[in-house]
């Protein structure tokens, strides 16, 4: 505990009132990620998995008491005999998935990203990854997508799993990515860790690029621009696209390269885009600045002798605060307005 946090802990607070004298509602229950104007898809992961399971008997689902919160309840309801409720036990969630994979099944195991990366890591490393078993670990609440504080905010999950050999890592942006990735990661003969957006998930990428289709291992340019290139993953691609639209009205032309597969990284496409030159290069990720997309891209550029002007948008190397998501996204610089403001400051 620091002196600063101790002081804060004992400071009495007052209810905040707006100019109209009414209470300002900034509850931690406000957890929507979607910007205005996008259509949403209900539980895209759950429905995509049911569709796939209808054509592939090897698909089974497991959850550690979080099926409703990872959209796996859709699968559990449609195919109760292929769903295993493992209870609040993440270690056996993963090792049982490994056992099922040994017997020829393709298990999709779901929990929260904090629990998979922190609690079940040894089991993911040794029971799954070391033997390259086709277990698909699908985790809700990635990065800063909840206001519950560090117990639920998986801000370092990508850093943890990037160090693990054999692991394929996905950070999807939206419902289009999630629906596209489910059959592709099932077809991949090896372990996969994917972050998940759950509930009503916006459809963003096809709005900006109608022919967009998720391709495992591929980065794709969603929009082009001559002043700056944002290389982004997860919902930060959504933020980046919205920021690019706003910047366009200020005469700033921003390209967005979406990198949903964090590992293996599509270094070829990244180098080709950065290699065009003349643009500020910015990475944007919903993850700590340590060990995520930004550092992976920086490494790729440096060892290939490419040295553009380079900036990172990422969460700080800190345990983050609790609160309402919009407040927190502003505070940590990953809201659309803060992205716009920061890019203007850098150009």
């Amino acid at each position, binding site marked *: 505990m620091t002196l600063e946090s101790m002081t804060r802990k004992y400071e009495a607070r007052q209810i905040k009132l707006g100019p109209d004298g009414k209470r300002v509602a900034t509850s931690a229950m406000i957890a929507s990620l979607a910007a205005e104007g996008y259509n949403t898809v209900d539980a895209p992961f759950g429905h995509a998995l049911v569709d796939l399971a209808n054509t592939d008997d090897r698909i*089974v689902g497991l959850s550690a008491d979080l099926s409703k919160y990872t959209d796996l309840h859709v699968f559990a309801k449609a195919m109760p005999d292929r769903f*295993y409720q*493992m*209870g609040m*036990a993440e*270690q*056996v969630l*993963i*090792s*049982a*998935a*490994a*056992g*099922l*994979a*040994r*017997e*020829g*099944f393709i*298990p999709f195991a779901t929990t929260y990203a904090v629990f998979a990366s922190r609690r079940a890591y*040894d*089991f993911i*490393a*040794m*029971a799954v990854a*070391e*033997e390259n078993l086709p277990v698909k670990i699908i985790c809700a609440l990635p990065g800063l997508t909840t206001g519950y504080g560090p117990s639920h905010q998986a801000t370092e999950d990508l850093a943890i799993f990037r160090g693990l050999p054999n692991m394929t890592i996905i950070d999807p942006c939206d419902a289009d990515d999630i629906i596209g990735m489910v059959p592709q990661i099932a077809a991949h003969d090896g372990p996969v860790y994917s972050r998940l957006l759950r509930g009503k998930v916006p459809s963003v990428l096809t709005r900006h690029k109608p022919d967009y289709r998720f391709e495992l291992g591929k980065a794709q340019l969603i929009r082009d621009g001559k002043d700056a290139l944002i290389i982004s993953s997860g919902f930060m691609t959504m933020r980046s696209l919205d920021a690019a639209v706003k910047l366009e009205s200020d005469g700033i032309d921003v390209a967005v390269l979406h990198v949903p597969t964090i590992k293996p990284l599509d270094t070829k496409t990244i180098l080709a885009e950065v290699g065009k030159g003349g643009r500020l290069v910015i990475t944007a990720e919903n993850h700590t600045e340590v060990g995520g997309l930004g550092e992976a891209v920086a490494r790729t550029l440096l060892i290939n002798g490419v040295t553009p002007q380079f900036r990172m948008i990422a969460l700080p190397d800190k345990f983050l605060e609790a609160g309402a998501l919009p407040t927190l996204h502003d505070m940590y610089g990953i809201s659309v307005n803060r992205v716009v403001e920061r890019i203007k400051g850098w150009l």
Partner: protein
Amino acid sequence: MSEIERALRATNMSLELRAWNIRRKALLMGEVQGQGYIGQALGVADVLAASYFHALKYRAEDPEWEGRDRFYLSIGHYAIALYSVLMEAGILPEDELETYGMDDSRMPMSGMASYTPGMEITGGSLGHGLGIAVGAAMGLKRKNNPAFVYNLMSDGELGEGSTWEAVMSAVQYKLDNLICIVDFNDQQADGKTTAALAQVPEQEKWAAFGWHAQRVDGNDMDAVVAAFDVARNLPSAKPRVIIFDTKMCKGVDFLEIREITHFVRVEADEWSKALAVLEKGKPS
């Protein structure tokens, strides 16, 4: 299986000879490296002999046969013991014995699935085997495959929380095709297992969780065989555990009485002495 082999496998005397052979191979491998988890191998040899020559279904010439009973070695450092029985069973060629623990060997010091025929899982990070066995038992049921999954674990692994997650899960899914074998030699790295975490009453704990639990002398072949027979033929939907009390270094008297036996220190000149002691006790 030949008639002779079937006959040999059907008698307890042959199991004792198998156990003796397993002990001898383990000592020979220990001598190659001048070290090894020889205490555990000598202690668990009777249980492994009964497993591979009485209880398990397998085809030595086809270790991946779909109809085989799965045998998981959760305790990676017991590899020396499993290599011995895999050689005795004809799954591993005996002429590779002296490669144990050497570069490019198929028999590394800690057991790994990707190195060794007959080694089903990568053990060694303790408390993993039973959870994987739970998933495999679920998978076999999904396929209507009547094979059993055996998980051999150590008493020390009873201290891992993940073991108890798997224990509860096996009951939840009524895994009557799962047989857990606990080698209770009361030794872990820092000393007595029972002095580290409360391990008693062990049999009652498993039973309270809903398992069919037996506790027998793991160096008494008749008792070991009887326990396997009960576990295999139980007309109940419960998972089964057999806790075998075993003696570290069993069969080599001067090692049995050494105080620290988790990783037995054997001097260079003692291997031949140990083999000579074992030779004297060879079953007729």
